[in-house]
C-alpha cells in the first residue's frame, strides 16, 4: 500500500487524508506489473501429502494480524482463493 508520513516532514507513517501530501513508501501493485511471492513450506514429519491453501485478502483499513476477527465483505475482501493438494513423489 502507499504510505505517507504526517505532513511529509518525517518518516513516520500516518493515516488520514488531511495529513497526507505525498508518499514515503509504496508497496502497492503497480499497473501492468507482476508481483511474485515465493514460500517454502516444510511437510510435517512422515507426511508426504498436504493441502496448500492460498488466499489473497484485501483489507481496506485493518491490520493483518486481526484477519480472523474481521467481517468478510466489510473489513476484509477475499480476492482469490485456491487449494492445491501436494504429494511428494
Amino acid at each position, binding site marked *: *500500500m*502507499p504510505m*505517507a508520513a504526517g505532513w511529509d516532514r518525517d518518516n513516520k507513517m500516518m493515516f*488520514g*487524508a*488531511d495529513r*497526507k*501530501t*505525498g*508518499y514515503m513508501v*509504496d508497496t*502497492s*501493485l*503497480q*499497473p*501492468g*506489473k*507482476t*508481483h*511474485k*511471492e*515465493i*514460500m*517454502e*513450506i*516444510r*511437510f510435517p514429519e512422515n*507426511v*508426504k501429502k*498436504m493441502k*496448500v491453501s*492460498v488466499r*489473497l485478502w*484485501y483489507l*481496506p*483499513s485493518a491490520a493483518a494480524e486481526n484477519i480472523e476477527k474481521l467481517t468478510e*465483505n*466489510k473489513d476484509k*475482501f477475499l*480476492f*482469490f482463493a*485456491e487449494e*492445491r493438494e*501436494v*504429494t*511428494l*513423489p
Partner: protein
Amino acid sequence: MAKKFLLGFLGVSAFLFGSTAGQTAEVPKKAKTLDELIKMYDASSCKSCHQKEYEQWSKSFHAFSLIGSKRTLGSWASTIKLILDGKTYPHAKATKVEDLKVSHLMFCAKCHLPQLRNAEDSVAVELAKLVLSAAEGDEKAFEKVKQVNINCLVCHQEMALVHKWRDGYVDKKAIYGKKEGAHFDPKYSSLKKSPIIDRSVFCGQCHGTGPNFEFDEPSQCATAYGSYLHAYIPSGGTKTCQQCHMKEDNLGHFIVAYRDPRMVKKAIAYQVEVLPYYYLHKPGVYHNKARVVVKITNKAGHRIPDG
C-alpha cells in the same frame, strides 16, 4: 468615447463576474442552510425517467459520499475534531464548531461534497455538527448526512466541464451528458454536451493526482488518476476509467471497485505454482518441502490499492 469607455467597463465587469463565479457563468445563490443545499442539488426527479441509472447510483459509494463504508464518516469526524483541537492546526482559526467555515471543510468536500462551495459558512457549521453526531451513532444525524452526496447533478452539471475557458461555465438549467438537445424536466430543460464526461480526466477531478495544493492546508485522498497518468499510460494502458468501472459488465452508475467480484477478476491476474521436493539439509538428511510460487499481476488502470 464615453460609449467606448462604458462598453469597455462592461466587458471588464463581465469578465470579473465570470471569473469570480468559479464554476458557473452566474454567481450562484449560496445555500444558507443544509436543507437549502439539499434542495439546490435535489436529483429525485431524475429517477422517474432514469430509473435504472438511479437505482445503480443509489447502491454506489457516490450516494454515500460523506459516509462511505463508515470509514469515510469516521475520517470526516476525526478531521473536524483535529481542526478544532487547537493543537494540530494552530493557525486554522477554529477552536469550536461555530468557528468553522466552508473553507475549513473544502479540503475534504472538494470531492466528497463539491457543492459545498455553493453554501455559506452557516452550512459548514450545521454539517460539521451533524457529522460529529452521526459518527457517534446519532441515527437522525446519520440520515441527514446521507442526504448530501455525489448525485446526478454533481456529475452531470456541477463537475461536467473541466476546461471552462474553452467550453464555458456550467449552465445551471442544463444537464450535461454526451448529447445536445431538449430534456424533459422543467427545471433542467436542455441537454448539453460535456466533452469530457466519458474521459478519464472527468473522474480524475476527484480520484486525484496527488496533494491538493490549492488549499491553505493541503490534503491527499485518492490518487488513482495520478497512477493512471504516470504508471498505467506509460505501461501501454489504453482504457478509460469509465470503460472498466461503468461500460464493461454493464456496471453503469454503480461504478463499483473492490466490492464487486467482477472488478476483482478484471483487475488482478493470479497464478499459483506448487513444487514438492526433497531438500538436502545435510548429508543423509532430507527435509520434505513444497515451494509455493504466487504471481499477482495488476491489470487495472491504477495502483492497487490506492492511497
